[in-house]
């Protein structure tokens, strides 16, 4: 066995193999209007969960969820991720405080809504915002801007105090667009957790941690890895997934039989 191969085997935890899943899904013909199947319904009922019970999720359940992540598709099978799992209440609180502090700083400089229109202070912070937007326009969408301001004013949370946080780190050397692969591995994690009755919330604002040398050190984020997202996981408080939601339809260009049609 080559050194490279041995390296990998040695790194594995003792228990590895599992029985095969019982049966592959058969293709089923369905009629228009047939009820949603279990998997479809799971996707439709999943919500971002921002209220968790204090109770910790057993480690084996988190491992089981990560196991589903491992089998996510990725470009060229490059699997450009590794995980950090945080389950210490104090560390989670410190992560929350750090990110909330970043929000307070950003909001302090950019939240023009804090000032009356027509005042100098208002003009100054709108100007700041416009400069900032030139540099990073995609961070200046009103929704995350609003979230940052709410967090700064203690009206919203960053991680929502979950018992466990899963952070898939992105290997920036991934093929093509490794962000896509991270999104897919995250979706596997989110849906696996959902299938076990757990709640999850993606936390894009966790990426503030990536800009801090101290947090990179504490969470073991080293080049070529980057922390771009986190996923909060825990037992769901209350019943936030009773009804499905309404969402916008999206234009779809349908090309068939030499014709092009727009459908929604």
């Amino acid at each position, binding site marked *: 066995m080559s050194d490279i191969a041995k390296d990998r085997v040695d790194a594995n935890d003792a228990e590895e193999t599992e029985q095969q899943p019982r049966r592959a899904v058969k293709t089923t013909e369905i009629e228009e209007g047939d009820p949603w199947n279990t998997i479809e319904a799971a996707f439709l009922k999943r919500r971002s969960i921002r209220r968790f019970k204090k109770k910790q999720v057993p480690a084996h359940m988190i491992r089981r969820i990560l196991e589903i992540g491992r089998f996510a598709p990725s470009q060229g099978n490059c699997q450009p991720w590794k995980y950090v799992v945080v389950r210490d209440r104090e560390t989670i609180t410190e992560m929350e405080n750090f990110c909330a502090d970043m929000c307070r700083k950003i909001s302090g400089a950019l939240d023009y*809504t804090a000032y009356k229109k027509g005042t100098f202070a208002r003009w100054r912070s709108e100007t700041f915002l416009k400069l900032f937007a030139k540099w990073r326009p995609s961070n200046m969408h009103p929704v995350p801007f609003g979230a940052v301001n709410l967090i700064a004013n203690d009206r919203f949370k960053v991680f929502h105090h979950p018992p466990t946080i899963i952070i898939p780190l992105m290997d920036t050397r991934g093929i093509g667009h490794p962000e896509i692969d991270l999104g897919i591995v995250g979706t596997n994690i989110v849906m696996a957790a959902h299938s076990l009755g757990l709640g999850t919330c993606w936390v894009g604002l966790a990426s503030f941690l990536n800009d801090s040398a101290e947090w990179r050190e504490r969470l073991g984020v080293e080049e070529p890895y980057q922390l771009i997202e986190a996923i909060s996981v825990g037992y769901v408080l209350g019943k936030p997934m009773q009804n499905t939601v309404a969402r916008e339809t999206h234009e779809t260009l349908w090309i068939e039989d030499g014709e092009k049609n727009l459908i929604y």
Partner: protein
Amino acid sequence: MALLSKKEMKRIPIVDDANDSQFGVVAIDLENCNGCKMCTIICPCDVLELYGPRHDKKVRIKEGLSMCLSCDNCHAICEYDAISIEQTYNFVGRYKQLNRGAAIQPRLKY
């Protein structure tokens, strides 16, 4: 061809200017709402609040800037089918919504 001009791509909407930014709006059915408070707890944008006398509370959108992101999580939690998204967010400039239809529930027939 581009759906947005270069100028529009550079324009960042001002959030408290109604000409620039329209946030989500929820419709509340006051008949059905029993003031259980669940939607106010779940809302990620802190836009909902209860009002009214102690035994007949109802929910409403808070005064001031409401930054509802039209997630409909309030509808998902409501046991009384009393609240749901009526209008989704939209902006001028860079973040103008393109090629969308109105928000609707999952469809089985088209």
